């Protein structure tokens, strides 16, 4: 069914890079061309793989722009190359072995046109587990919506929760984020979604609009193979976390970490390394160095700033100098020996970001009386230092009425993830009822309602509370049916001897698994 738009449809670019998977590429490309939304410019990039010209030409569609490169430069390069040709208002992506359902583009365009406060929108996708035969054909064993998470900026800085092929963004955002990072060989997608989060909120559409494939057993996907090299993986993560797009950042306040060390030695080097490895919130690290050291230093760490200070100056004077140079809205100050571990700064920083009170600073969790670190708003510390420059840092903060405290448990970030982990642990221990209760609590208090209710229904069923599981599934199936919830509701109906109702639900589930909903495949 083609749409009859009364208003002008914005042009959408759909980018599909391909490399040596012609058997799947044809189906992927066809799924783009069969979109209900027609005003598209489709950019196919053959990244030096097997020739797919005949496949592209077989569609005879003038909307396709085909870049047929002989050399293999990788996914990030291919995406950047395609973006140079893109002329649309919006950009969407598809991998060459995945597919869109016919309303994918229309759904996201409608959302972005109507939700002008969000410049990125994303939907849900089925993860299709499949057996792959020798001839490359795929037999789908299950289709599950494994991740249907509402946008969470803080988590996005930590790790990805939005599938790249499920999102659409305004093309002009790329001018702000910068291009895809061609130095990365894994997590290329997250690097971009993370940078997009500096500039806009993402809108989550609760609709399943496509699927991506996951072969059972050993997977030959390049990205999966690359993940196996742990050192390489960590290198990529660290590089992504250190990346800072050009300012201004409308959605993220910058953090300046002032490292109060009095010499550049091994201990200082180790601390800098630990900060680099364990910090996911965007930051710049400011380090006082003597003029002599300053002239001889070079580093590949883009967010490390050396500030030349005279060793004769007092620690407070050095701090004031570093403060003047720092550009972050939040300031963290750490002493030389402070132990750095995961979430060392994010825990107190998150508490500070979400605390609506004025004149408050959060002590880093491992702070002691003799060795303490703090994070606070720049305006607060600047005022304190301006009013009481002759006092020590602590005395000046106290004198200006800034209250220092450690974050309470409920102020900590990633509560959602902690609770999900608790639920998974309960499941692994066979405590399904407890898991169901946790999911229900999350659904009520931390968004992600549909996703959590689906998990709760499954846990209830496993716990033996089949009636409640079926009720929950029925409720979900009225809004957004999935294979899992249809199957679960049907099982209970069959056990109740309501065979006609069970067959009806199972038939929909079967058609979804078989892809019969989309006969053009």
């Amino acid at each position, binding site marked *: 069914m083609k749409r009859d738009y009364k208003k002008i449809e914005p042009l959408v670019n759909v980018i599909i890079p391909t490399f040596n998977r012609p058997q799947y590429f044809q189906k992927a490309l066809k799924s783009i061309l069969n979109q209900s939304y027609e005003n598209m410019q489709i950019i196919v990039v053959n990244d030096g793989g097997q020739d797919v010209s005949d496949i592209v030409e077989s569609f005879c569609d003038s909307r396709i722009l085909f870049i047929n490169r002989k050399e293999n430069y990788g996914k990030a390069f291919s995406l950047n190359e395609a973006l140079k040709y893109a002329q649309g208002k919006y950009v969407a992506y598809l991998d060459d072995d995945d597919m869109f359902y016919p309303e994918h583009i229309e759904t996201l365009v409608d959302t972005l046109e109507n939700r002008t406060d969000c410049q990125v929108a994303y939907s849900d996708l089925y993860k299709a*587990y499949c057996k792959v035969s020798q001839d490359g054909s795929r037999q789908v*064993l*299950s289709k599950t919506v494994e991740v249907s998470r509402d946008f969470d900026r803080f988590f996005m800085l930590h790790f*990805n929760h939005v599938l790249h092929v499920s999102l659409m963004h305004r093309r002009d955002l790329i001018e702000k984020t910068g291009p895809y990072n061609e130095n990365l060989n894994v997590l290329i*997608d997250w690097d971009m979604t993370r940078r997009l989060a500096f500039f806009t909120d993402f809108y989550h559409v609760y609709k399943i609009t496509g699927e991506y494939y996951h072969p059972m057993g050993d997977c030959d996907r390049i990205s999966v193979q690359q993940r196996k090299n742990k050192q390489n993986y960590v290198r990529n993560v660290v590089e992504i976390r250190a990346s800072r797009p050009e300012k201004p950042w409308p959605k993220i306040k910058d953090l300046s970490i002032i490292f109060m060390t009095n010499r550049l030695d091994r201990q200082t080097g180790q601390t800098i390394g630990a900060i680099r490895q364990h910090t996911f919130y965007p930051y710049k690290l400011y380090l006082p160095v003597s003029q002599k050291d300053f002239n001889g230093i070079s580093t590949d760490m883009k967010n490390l700033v050396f500030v030349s200070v005279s060793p004769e100056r007092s620690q407070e004077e050095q701090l004031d100098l570093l403060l003047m140079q720092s550009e972050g809205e939040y300031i963290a100050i750490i002493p030389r020996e402070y132990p750095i571990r995961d979430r060392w700064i994010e825990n107190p920083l998150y508490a500070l970001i979400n605390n609506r009170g004025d004149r408050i600073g959060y002590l880093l969790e491992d702070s002691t009386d003799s060795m303490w670190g703090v994070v606070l708003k720049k305006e607060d510390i600047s005022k304190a230092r301006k009013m009481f420059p002759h006092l020590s840092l602590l005395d000046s903060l106290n004198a200006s009425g800034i209250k220092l405290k450690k974050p309470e448990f409920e102020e900590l970030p990633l509560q959602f993830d902690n609770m999900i982990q608790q639920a*998974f642990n309960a499941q692994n221990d066979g405590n399904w009822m407890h898991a169901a209760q946790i999911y229900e609590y999350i659904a009520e208090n931390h968004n992600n309602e549909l996703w959590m209710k689906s998990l709760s229904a499954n846990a209830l069923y496993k716990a033996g509370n089949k009636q409640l599981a079926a009720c929950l599934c029925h409720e979900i199936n009225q809004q957004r049916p999935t294979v899992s919830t249809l199957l679960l509701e*049907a099982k209970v109906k069959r056990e109740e001897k309501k*065979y006609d109702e069970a067959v009806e639900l*199972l038939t929909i*589930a079967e058609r979804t698994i078989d892809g019969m909903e989309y006969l053009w495949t």
Partner: protein
Amino acid sequence: MDIARKNASQHDSTQHYEILQELGDCYCSMGDYEKARKYYENAAVLEPDEAAPYVGLGVVALQNNQMDDAHAAFKVACRLDNTCAKAYSGLGMVAQQNNDYRYAFDMYLKSLELDSENLIGILGLFQTSCQMGSFEQVTHYLEMYLDMHPGDTSVMYPLAALYMKDGKIEASQNVLRDILVLDPKNKDAANLLEEIEHNLAQAQNV
């Protein structure tokens, strides 16, 4: 696809198989054995090491009076899963149809050893016992089943009959009265109770 793996739910790779098997079970219960067979066959293709589709195929063959096919299907199910109680009761049913009561009895017994709640096994064991005139072991299984499923009148009645046969008249009366509380219109129970009471009255008169 770069995505937060630790938040992913535990996936279930057997959905397609489960859907086919469930559809087979539904159609089988609805009496549409042709459709049921088609779904069980597809399920068996998808998961060739699972016993359940073969149990379903055995039931379909049994319903169609194709005893050789049923026997073959239940045998495959037993080979794939030698703890599948339903497969053994299926073999029992086939043997019972073929008047091989001894073998049927053994198969029902085996199925009850694997799953003492298997109703088909319980009732099959009772029937073959009647057919052979040998009731050893049956009472034990009926009692065990009723411990777990109190109020199942389809098992209570055979138990009452067995008690009566063994001379446990009072126990038999109690079970029959319980049946009539649960199901006042149960004619079999009412008749048997009446017969017992009539016999008792006659004995007292003598």
